[in-house]
């Protein structure tokens, strides 16, 4: 029940690379210059095979499971990676891979050239599940019209995978960021990922339409589940790092002639942080396993992991700031950045509240089916 040898190797390699290539002050400078994805880092990710992990060997992928990708996500949380790793992998492994264009697109993902980011949020009355952005047939072919806003990591995208409504139901459409008819405003975000707001009004060729109808809906569902799990894993990594930072700091910092760590009220609060972080860890890993083994409970586990990690990530990083005191409120100190990243992850793709509502719905189904089974 420990990590497999392969998983341990992956963890160690990724941990070493990120430790060696992460500098907190440099990160702040880059963000200030609106650099959210360093080309040399992204290239290194590609070379280490991270961008190939979810794909089948037939597409030159490494055929890894979510459990392995979650290792990267956890480390992204720990090292405050701003590169669009989980963003790009979540879309590629659930939407691009399902399309007929997979064989053309996936190599670009693996090489690092194609960074497709999901565009699902809208400023208007549409929801992430039923968009008001439309893909419609005109005399001269398809046309995509509408707005997609608040796209996390959108500043690093080469393409957007746009969720739209069509006469055939949902559709996923791939649009290059530099396409004529796409006006895209990028902006900084507090977590350093860089975002984008997009207005689409442009013709779409058939090969840009990735999926339509049921297949698109299925991909949306898979994408959301994948995003829930990866955001949970990254939150876990950030929470653990915030806890570790706090433990280190309180051991060193003295007040009233003794280390903060010797105050019982603070000790018990750090114990709570550990308890909650470990409980979250169990759920996150189990959610990965449930997905990788296609367990009938996979949907419940993904949502449970999302709900728990969102609550715990918030609480643990808030406590980390409080236990540090003043220093944690400056941008120059790392611990607040875990808090900011966890805050952004809370609402990415699926909020805690949405996940909880979906958990209840899935649970009611499960109870109903168990009851009907027991009646037979």
């Amino acid at each position: 029940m420990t990590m497999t040898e392969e998983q341990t190797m992956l963890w160690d390699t990724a941990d070493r690379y990120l430790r060696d290539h992460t500098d907190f002050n440099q990160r702040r400078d880059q963000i200030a210059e609106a650099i959210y994805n360093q080309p040399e880092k992204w290239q290194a990710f590609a070379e280490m095979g991270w961008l190939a992990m979810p794909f089948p060997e037939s597409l030159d992928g490494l055929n890894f499971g979510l459990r392995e990708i979650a290792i990267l996500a956890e480390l992204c949380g720990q090292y405050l990676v701003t590169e669009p790793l989980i963003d790009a992998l979540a879309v590629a492994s659930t939407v691009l891979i399902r399309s007929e264009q997979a064989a053309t697109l996936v190599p670009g993902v693996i090489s690092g050239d194609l960074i497709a980011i999901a565009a699902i949020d809208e400023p208007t009355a549409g929801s992430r599940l039923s968009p008001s952005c439309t893909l419609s047939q005109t005399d001269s072919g398809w046309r995509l019209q509408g707005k997609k806003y608040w796209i996390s990591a959108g500043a690093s995208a080469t393409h957007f995978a746009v969720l739209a409504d069509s006469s055939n139901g949902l559709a996923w459409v791939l649009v290059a960021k530099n396409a004529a008819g796409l006006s895209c405003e990028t902006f900084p975000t507090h977590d350093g990922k860089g975002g984008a707001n997009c207005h689409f009004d442009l013709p779409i060729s058939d090969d840009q339409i990735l999926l339509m109808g049921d297949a698109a809906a299925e991909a949306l569902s898979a994408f959301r589940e994948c995003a829930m799990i990866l955001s949970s894993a990254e939150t876990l990594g950030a929470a653990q790092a915030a806890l570790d930072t706090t433990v280190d700091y309180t051991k060193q910092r003295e007040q009233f002639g003794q280390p903060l760590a010797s105050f019982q009220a603070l000790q018990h609060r750090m114990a709570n942080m550990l308890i909650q972080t470990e409980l979250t860890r169990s759920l996150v890993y189990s959610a990965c396993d449930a997905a990788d083994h296609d367990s009938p409970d996979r949907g419940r586990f993904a949502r449970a992991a999302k709900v728990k990690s969102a609550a715990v990530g918030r609480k643990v990083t808030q406590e980390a700031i409080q236990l540090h005191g003043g220093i944690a409120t400056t941008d120059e100190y790392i611990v607040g950045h875990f808090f900011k990243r966890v805050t952004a992850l809370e609402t990415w793709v699926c909020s805690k509240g949405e996940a909880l509502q979906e958990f209840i719905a899935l649970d009611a189904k499960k109870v109903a089916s168990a009851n009907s089974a027991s009646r037979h």
Partner: protein
Amino acid sequence: MNASSPLPTDSDAFRTAVRDFLSEALTPELIRAGERTTSVFSDFEAGRQWQSILHQRGWGAPDWPLEYGGTGWDIQQRYIFQEECRQANAPTPVMMGIQMLGPMLMHFGTPSQKERFLPGIISGENVWCQGYSEPGSGSDLASLKTTADHDGDDFIVNGTKIWTSMAHYSDWIFCLVRTDKAVKPQAGISFLLVDMATPGITVKPFTSLDGEIEQCQVFFEDVRVPADNLLGQENQGWTVAKSLLEFERGGQHFTIDLKKQLSKIQRMMSTETCRVSGDPTFAYRVAETQIDVMALEQTELRIKGSLTAGDNPGALSSLVKVSGTELGQCCAELLIEAAGQSAIPWQSEVLAPSYSGSTAAASESVTTMAEYINSRATTIYGGTAEIQRSIIAKHVLGL
């Protein structure tokens, strides 16, 4: 603690075998004793009877090694067994001998001690209680004052123990006593096994908050105990006890009971007469608790996994105890809210397994109030939640 945690894979055949046994062996009265359990222990006589039945089947102590009468089951099977027992409402016997003393006897006992005590424990013939806490020594156990002085080949014990569960039913007590006052507190403690029938012992039972009697104070006045009854070396009692505490914490599967409570809550929520059935926040709180229970279950599995792999789960046990007991309190709160006013009657007599009449409380809420009241003690006994948090702070976080 970076262990991956596979989901449980049921061994269906084993489960069926257990289930078949239970449906044969459990009488309606035993089942009622299980159903009307309001604390850790079921009705004493029903529990003793059930232990004897299990022992006859060879299942008296599944956690023990085969050579001492264990079952040879793997961890998964032991979990399934426990789960099925709870699902079938088997009563819970007094387990201090099996769960706590047994393993320590195996580890620290002389061959003759093992031979003398283990059979009576597993058969349920000898019921044991635990004498650790004293009126002045709760969380600060090492400050205990009960003395055992040498007198020829015997010890003479004087002092008092408190919060001694089921002492009024017990045949024996294992206790910590002070054998050296000159050294620092933990170094002068020994571990003694004492026959409750020895002259000089008196037992004063306490009525618990729920009106039942489980806790006692035990008084020792010049109680003569043969030196043979010393477990481990003299003045090494703290080491013996510490391993016991570790064992107590590691051996618990809280989620079996928690899942059972959650099912009951969900059943109540879906009945029309339930006060909370239309309240969406109640459903959300239940769902959040369910998620917490899932997280704890997966953590228990991680620990089981590391036990199988031979690792020391260490202070993760404290984590499980804190979360398990606090989630139990949370479930008890949800149940009391679901029961609402229907849980107010307090009829001790209906808790007897022989009682099959009607109840003033709603039938599904007969035990709800007592369970809620008793749930508050779960974060106090066996090492308070505060002590567990201090252990985590010290041993996991290094504070």
